[in-house]
């Protein structure tokens, strides 16, 4: 008996011509060894597909991007006025604060000084606010819940296995589609 060997993989991936496929499957019907190999191949492929997508390490992505660049490193970004890193004078129109004419360099985003205890108090207030808003939402949602006797739409989890079997049954009238009932036999695990 000549076993299928590497053909098992081609069979599962549909890489065989139909004559080869017929021959291979005819062999599989008789050969327990190759049947097991075919099932294992299918199971392995299914398991591989279930793996989560792999995130490449950032370093690798960077290295690959660098390789993709045709020339050398990018030239440094040109500034309109070389040497000037910030405007010499800051404009503050419509500002009631006295103008000092002080250069803003290095102080643009300076926040007013806040004492640490003030900051803690603010955090507490914010937290309390969020909590009470959450509680209010919860209370309102509870109050607004439909009465249990209400005929409001219900939660549905479609019974997929039943639906798949019913789908297969419905194709019984059609002579030119695959006998899906046969496939359902395979899906529902009714195997030798």
């Amino acid at each position, binding site marked *: 008996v000549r076993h299928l060997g590497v053909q098992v993989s081609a069979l*599962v*991936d*549909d890489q065989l011509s*139909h004559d080869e*496929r*017929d021959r291979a*499957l*005819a062999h*599989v*019907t008789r050969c327990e060894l190759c049947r097991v190999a*075919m099932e294992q191949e*299918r199971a392995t*492929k*299914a398991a*591989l*597909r279930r793996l989560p997508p792999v995130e490449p390490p950032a370093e690798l992505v960077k290295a690959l991007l660098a390789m993709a660049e045709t020339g050398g490193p990018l030239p440094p970004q040109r500034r309109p006025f070389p040497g000037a890193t910030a405007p010499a004078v800051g404009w503050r129109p419509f500002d009631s604060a006295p103008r000092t004419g002080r250069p803003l360099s290095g102080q643009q985003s300076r926040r007013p000084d806040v004492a640490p205890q003030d900051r803690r108090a603010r955090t507490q207030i914010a937290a309390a606010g969020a909590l009470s808003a959450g509680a209010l*939402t919860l*209370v*309102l*949602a*509870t*109050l*607004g*819940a*439909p009465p249990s006797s209400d005929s409001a*739409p*219900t*939660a*549905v*989890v*479609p*019974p*997929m296995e*039943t*639906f*798949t079997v*019913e*789908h297969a*049954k*419905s*194709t*019984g*009238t*059609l*002579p*030119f*589609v*695959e*006998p*899906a*009932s*046969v*496939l359902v*036999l*395979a*899906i529902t695990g*009714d*195997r*030798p």
Partner: protein
Amino acid sequence: VIGSLAPIRRGQIPRTVLAVPMTVVFAGSFVLSAPALAVEAGDEVGAVRLLHRAMAAPDAVSYSGTQYVAAWSSLDGAASTGAIVDVIHRAGGSTEVRAHGAQSLSAVDEGSSAAWLADGGGPVGLLVRTHDVSVVGTGSVAGRPTHVVLARRGDGTTAARLWLDTESAVPLRREVYNDDGTTRTASAFIEFSVEQAPRQVRAEATAVNLNSVLRHSDLAQLRGDGWSCPDRLGGGLVLYEARRVGDAVQLSYSDGVVTVSVFEQRGWLDEGNLHGFAAREVNDGMVYSKTGPPAQLTWSVGDWVVTVVADAPAETIDAVVAAMPPTAPQQERGFFARIGKGAERLASWLNPFG
């Protein structure tokens, strides 16, 4: 000359055959009496005659054999399933299928023409409405000579190839392809023999089956109650059968090659309890899918949950989703509606005049 095949007697013809135009029955009885139907490559009329003969074959021919069936997912070509089965069919009766080497038998539901909803012509009508069929030559399956019939889509791509037994017209090999030419399903007999068995009279559909069947009038009523039950979906899919399955309505669509079942249920999709599904945002809503085969998808449309089980190319599945566009989950909209209602109640308590 009837030959080895059982003659068709009107009284014994099950409704499956009666549902198709009587010309078909006559054509069937004619071709069955002349097994060597002369058809040439490129013959389109010959192809239609062969298909009608194949449609009538289960009623006239008893056979047994070993068949393999393989299917690849149209959503993920790497996913596949397959089975090798022993098949026993009795003329006019049921088909029994047993996983190769297994003990347990299961009967294949042949469907009932009492439930047929599409216009005339039966399954052949469905096929030729959206496909060009032609005989492309002869072949051999399980050592038996066959006619090869090709079904092409409107754009000229091949949808299916059928190898019909020259003697009995039973499809011995079927291959169905996706739009991009990859195989979606393939089946073939590895062993096949026509048998001299007495013709069986199939038991009429059971009471339960007939009760679950929905006719045009039932569908009209359901549509009035808010169910969608479309007559056709995109891609040439026509409604040919409808049933009740528990609290759901099952709508079966086909173009003769592709099959799609749509299940409608009242309610909102409990997404938290769906397991093993991939989620994809479509329109305003989420579509949850399993690759299969067969592909399984489910989503919310307003106060309804739509579930699709399909043996169809990915493009057809997309068209089905587009025909019944997903909406934001009812659950979320329901939550804000609840807050609104809660506020109203609270206000009514606080209102001294309320």
